[in-house]
């Protein structure tokens, strides 16, 4: 049956930006494959959030709301979504490839006895079938992938699609799901969320990143200042050299064995640009390199480069950014 169902993840009482991205895209794709766009939210006290999705194209929003869904447990969420999916019977299911999405999507697909295509950066329709473009080999190659059976399921890398407001019918439908709790063998004991309000590198729009040239942990403060100047959608990152030196926790590491990021702007400070680092941020829309070594490989990949001492460039840059933003 035609129709696209998207999974809208909720975190800290809000729908994640990735959900709006895939809703917008689903609306666009529905023009080609036909059918309605539906969204599904799962959680506790989430009903009030549902109507937000209508702005971006959702014709129906299924809400699974209950205390048993307060924390994400794969089995519970898979049962709930599978029930909604069998009810709506879409030809395509989209999720956002967040940590939860990457965990949830393949399990859901296997539950529905189909496959899924993970971490897609583009979607299109050809001959009525969904064609997904996804990176492989840490972004050193791309593959065009199709699903064999319906529903065709794909998880989408955050920041891949623009958020567009195209109103959908927005009918909210509460779904009652009776969980088979005998199958649930996991329980969330606690959540340790960082005090900082900064977005995760995989979801940030702007990343200011530091490498070996930072020379020490205390110097990352100037990068944090620049990120703050850019605004709440900016955060800091680090190359493997800085993490291995113990200057930053590995949760900041960008690169092949760290996080793969796709921000609008990536500012690499004192980073030479080894292949493994480029693999982690090569799909950034704009790359800026600040490095005193004119031979640093990163300059061959940067859209804008400044060959100078980063300690002399970054603070005045921060001042300029503050001035521009007013």
């Amino acid at each position, binding site marked *: 049956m035609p129709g696209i169902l998207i999974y809208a993840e909720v975190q800290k009482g809000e729908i994640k930006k990735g959900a709006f991205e895939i809703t917008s895209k689903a609306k666009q794709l529905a023009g080609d494959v036909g059918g309605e766009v539906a969204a599904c939210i799962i959680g506790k006290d989430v009903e009030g959030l549902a109507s937000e999705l209508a702005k971006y194209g959702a014709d129906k929003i299924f809400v699974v709301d209950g205390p048993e869904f307060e924390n994400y447990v794969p089995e519970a969420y898979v049962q709930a979504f599978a029930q909604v999916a069998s009810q709506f019977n879409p030809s395509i299911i989209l999720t956002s490839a967040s940590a939860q999405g990457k965990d949830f999507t393949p399990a859901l697909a296997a539950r529905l006895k189909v496959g899924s295509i993970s971490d897609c950066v583009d979607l299109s329709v050809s001959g009525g079938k969904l064609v997904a473009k996804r990176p492989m080999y840490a972004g050193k190659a791309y593959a065009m992938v199709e699903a064999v059976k319906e529903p065709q399921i794909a998880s989408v890398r955050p920041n891949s699609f623009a958020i567009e407001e195209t109103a959908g019918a927005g009918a909210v439908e509460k779904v009652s799901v009776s969980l088979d709790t005998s199958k649930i063998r996991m329980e969330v004991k606690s959540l340790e969320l960082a005090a900082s309000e900064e977005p995760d590198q995989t979801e940030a729009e702007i990343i200011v990143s530091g490498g070996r040239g930072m020379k020490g942990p205390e110097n990352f403060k100037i990068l944090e200042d620049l990120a703050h100047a850019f605004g709440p959608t900016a955060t800091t990152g680090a190359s493997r050299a800085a993490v*291995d030196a113990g200057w930053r926790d590995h949760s900041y590491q960008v690169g092949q064995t760290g996080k793969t990021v796709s921000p609008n702007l990536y500012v690499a400070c004192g980073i030479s640009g080894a292949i493994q680092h480029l693999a982690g941020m090569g799909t950034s829309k704009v790359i800026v390199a600040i490095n005193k070594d004119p*031979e640093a*490989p990163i300059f*061959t990949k940067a859209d804008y480069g400044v060959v100078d001492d980063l300690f002399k460039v970054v603070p005045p840059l921060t001042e300029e950014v503050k001035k521009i933003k007013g």
Partner: protein
Amino acid sequence: MDFEFSDEIKMLRKTAGDFAKNEFEPVAQDLDREEKYPRDVWKKASGLGLIGAWIPEEYGGSGVGFFGNAIITEEFSRVDLGMSLIIAGTFGCEAIYWAGTEEQKKKYLSLVSHGEAISAGAFTEPDAGTDVAGARTRAVKDGDEYVINGNKMFITNGDVCDFMVTLCVTNPDAEKRYKKHSLIIVESDRPGVTATKIHGKMGIRASDTAEISFEDVRVPVSNLVGDVEGQGFYQAMQFFDTTRIMVSAQGVGLAQGALDKAIQYVKERKAFGVPIASFQITQQKIAEMAMRVEATRNLVYKSAWYLDNHKVDPILNSITKYYAGETAVFCANYAVELHGGYGYIDEYDVQRFYRDAKILQLYEGTKEAEVLTIARRLLA
């Protein structure tokens, strides 16, 4: 003849290569500047069985032979020659292996294979290098002890070792010049042993080199290697036939490392709008480096294989040592040239490779000594 490596050798190479990459790279430059011996890295390598890997399992080693040891040496030297000398933590013990009594093997080989001791080989003297038989350190029997007096020079591990296998004159009145010496094991903490670290080496500055003086040092007669006096010169020759190959493996490693760095640099560095890798003179240099590395490597593997199969071809050994020294210096030199000005400063490793390489034409058999060995044997 099978030119494929066994799975064990492949895994061994990977462990040694990964170890060098992770443990040597971050500290090599600083250790070179500070002339500091990396005891902690030696200890870690020991724990993995990388030091004394050649020692048979019955004495605590991994039994991979001198071939396996050559592979480890090659992978270590590829990253840093100075630090690679932690593998010489068993230096001198090769003589105990070939010529020692069973008791001596059990005692000393297991000490170095278990990471409980570092050994040194004390042969060279201030006035006797190539002329091994010219060594004059005296060991005079006194009851059930030897009393040793003399000086040794350029002793690797001299200031960090726990014992040294020492070439001494025990039979000064022997008719033949080559029957006057014995090898005696001397523990470094014996009263009268003074080690003075040598500073200011051009290269391999992370390795320890010292002058040793012996003043009335007393050791039990059971420390006489092989329990027979007068065999020292021949035991030393046999020892050098072994270590010559290990040093040649160092040459292969350093040359390969220099080649790796040169290839990486010329692909990235641009001149006149294109990578310098597209220039023919650059290509000539790269090709010549690669040819020599490949040839040297095969000489080393063949020589090491012969050693493990108890065949020694002194001509082959000398060819290998000579060629390895030449190749290392040749490749380090071109690597610096290909880096241009950047090859001259210590931010880039090749300048250290250049300084380190020269020793391979000087120690463990000077290149001149090797040439004469080859010619004399062929013309005999």
